[in-house]
């Protein structure tokens, strides 16, 4: 099988919107191009029995030939039959750990003379220092949307977070999905399996026999500039078609689904649902879902001093609505039962997120299903809530009839 194209010609004039083809062997040169442009490359790699996100020195660090086996509460690496680098999903980490770090110093101050004086803002390199330029290599469409969801929450630049500065220093190389994981439902959430706008480059992996290549959609000038130094050709119509079809096929093979519309209304109408007691009997309130979820953003702010009492710092770190003290007020938590905390998480993610931030908080990546130690599946919970809502409606209609 061949991937038709004009062989051998290196086209330096890629523009946003153009479609190119590059060999997998050229990935190393893509890495070089990124490094020369001043980026550190972050991407998937195998470590500790999982495919995690970390800094990659070269293309060889990518998880070629590795796949995963996913189920509620289960994640296993497996060997693939081919050499695909991106044939996996729902790793435990997401890109939020780089844009919205788990721990961050906001500022430090000197305490003296009955007052205080703020010295350095930001981490030890200083708030006004340039954040590192990072190339996110291998961003799945669902995760690209997750980044955009967090942009809406944290990216205004008006708050504590240095998110906006970090985000501006990121280059995104997305990877379209051709093989959904067992727990994926991006199609239902409208976030995949093809990447929406927002990438600098988007790759579609094409593996067949000993041919291994990538279709490259150029999204921005920055993406074009990075691609310029890498051997590539114009993609031929047949190749493009093959790639697009593979992505389209993937949308038919999702392991799970959510109702197409009405999640916000379903959540708003479900506060008294009996189903919450059912899930509460299983939920450990461990908060794994909030750690794994690429859009969860809640943080805690902490003021600390050193032993001398002369020096104070304010730190921000990840927090979870499953923590009991998350909702502490007047002597106790507002949400004390597991039922109320699980309900808060799901109704926020799928419902009130719309009211607060004008979009859904869920991108259909399936991580919460995989990484829940007891295997709670939100697609199953939503189906149950929907059934209960339907029963309530038909039940009400029956009594309104007045029939005995």
């Amino acid at each position, binding site marked *: 099988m061949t991937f038709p194209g004009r062989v051998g010609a290196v086209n330096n004039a890629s523009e946003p919107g153009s479609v190119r083809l590059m060999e997998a062997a050229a990935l190393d040169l893509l890495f070089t191009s990124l490094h020369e442009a001043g980026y550190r490359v972050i991407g998937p790699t195998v470590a500790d029995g999982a495919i995690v996100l970390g800094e990659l020195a070269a293309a060889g660090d990518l998880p070629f030939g590795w796949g995963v086996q996913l189920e509620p509460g289960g994640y296993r690496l497996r060997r693939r039959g081919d050499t695909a680098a991106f044939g996996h999903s729902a790793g435990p980490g997401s890109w939020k750990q780089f844009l919205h770090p788990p721990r961050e110093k906001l500022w430090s101050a000197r305490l003296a003379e009955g007052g205080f004086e703020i010295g350095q803002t930001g981490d030890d390199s200083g708030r006004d220092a340039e954040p590192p330029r990072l190339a996110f290599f291998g961003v799945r469409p669902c995760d690209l949307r997750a980044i955009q969801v967090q942009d809406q929450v944290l990216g205004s630049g008006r708050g504590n977070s240095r998110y906006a500065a970090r985000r501006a220093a990121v280059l995104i190389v997305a990877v379209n999905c051709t093989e959904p994981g067992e727990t994926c439902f991006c199609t239902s959430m409208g976030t995949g399996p093809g990447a929406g706008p927002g990438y600098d480059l988007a790759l579609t992996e094409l593996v067949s026999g000993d041919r291994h290549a990538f279709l490259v959609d150029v999204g921005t000038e920055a993406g074009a500039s990075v691609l310029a130094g890498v051997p590539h050709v114009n993609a031929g119509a047949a190749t493009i078609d093959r790639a697009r079809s593979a992505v389209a096929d993937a949308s038919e093979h999702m392991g799970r689904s959510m109702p197409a519309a009405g999640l916000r209304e379903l959540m708003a109408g479900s506060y008294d649902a009996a189903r919450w007691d059912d899930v509460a009997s299983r939920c450990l309130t461990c908060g794994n879902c909030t750690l794994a979820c690429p859009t969860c953003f809640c943080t805690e702010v902490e003021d600390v001093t050193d032993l001398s009492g002369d020096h104070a710092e304010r730190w921000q770190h990840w927090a979870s609505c499953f923590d009991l003290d998350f909702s502490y007020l*007047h*002597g*106790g*938590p507002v949400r004390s039962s597991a039922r109320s905390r699980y309900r808060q998480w799901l109704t926020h993610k799928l419902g009130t997120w719309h009211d607060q931030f004008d979009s859904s908080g869920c991108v259909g990546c399936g991580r919460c299903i995989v990484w829940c130690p007891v295997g709670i599946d939100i697609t199953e919970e939503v189906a149950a809530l929907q059934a209960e809502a339907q029963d309530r409606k038909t039940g009400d209609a029956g009594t309104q009839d007045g029939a005995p």
Partner: protein
Amino acid sequence: MSGVTPADLAGHPFLRGMADGHLAVLARVCWVAPVRKGHQLFAEGDTARRFWLIRSGHVALDVHAPGGRQLIVETLGQGDLLGLSWLVPPYQWQFGATAVQDTMTFEFNAAAVQAACESDADLGYQLLQRVMSAALSRLQATRVRMLDLYAASAPVRGGP
């Protein structure tokens, strides 16, 4: 001869909506009673022979505690019924009542009102409904006071 007309009583919020005939019965067994500031209307332990509808002013129900402290149980004012113990045995005031300001009232002969209610069940029902409404309102308010909502909350204790 009391000088109180049914029309006078009809204007009092407590008797709002009561039929003229019933008001006429009540008007015959009550009189206008001004109460001077500081005057005690009744003391704890006294037999409850009268009750009042406050037209204007301010009355405090009080109770005496050791150490010379006199505590105010509740204050009543314009539109309020003063006195509930005249309706039920042992017909004895549980608290004292003192005018905090110059106060205008309609004062009622409790025995006469009870006799009138015995012979006219309708009147009795109308009166009891209004008494119950006042008592319920006061009970609910008292329960809310017992919640001590303005106290600083103690941390949650107990439980696993």
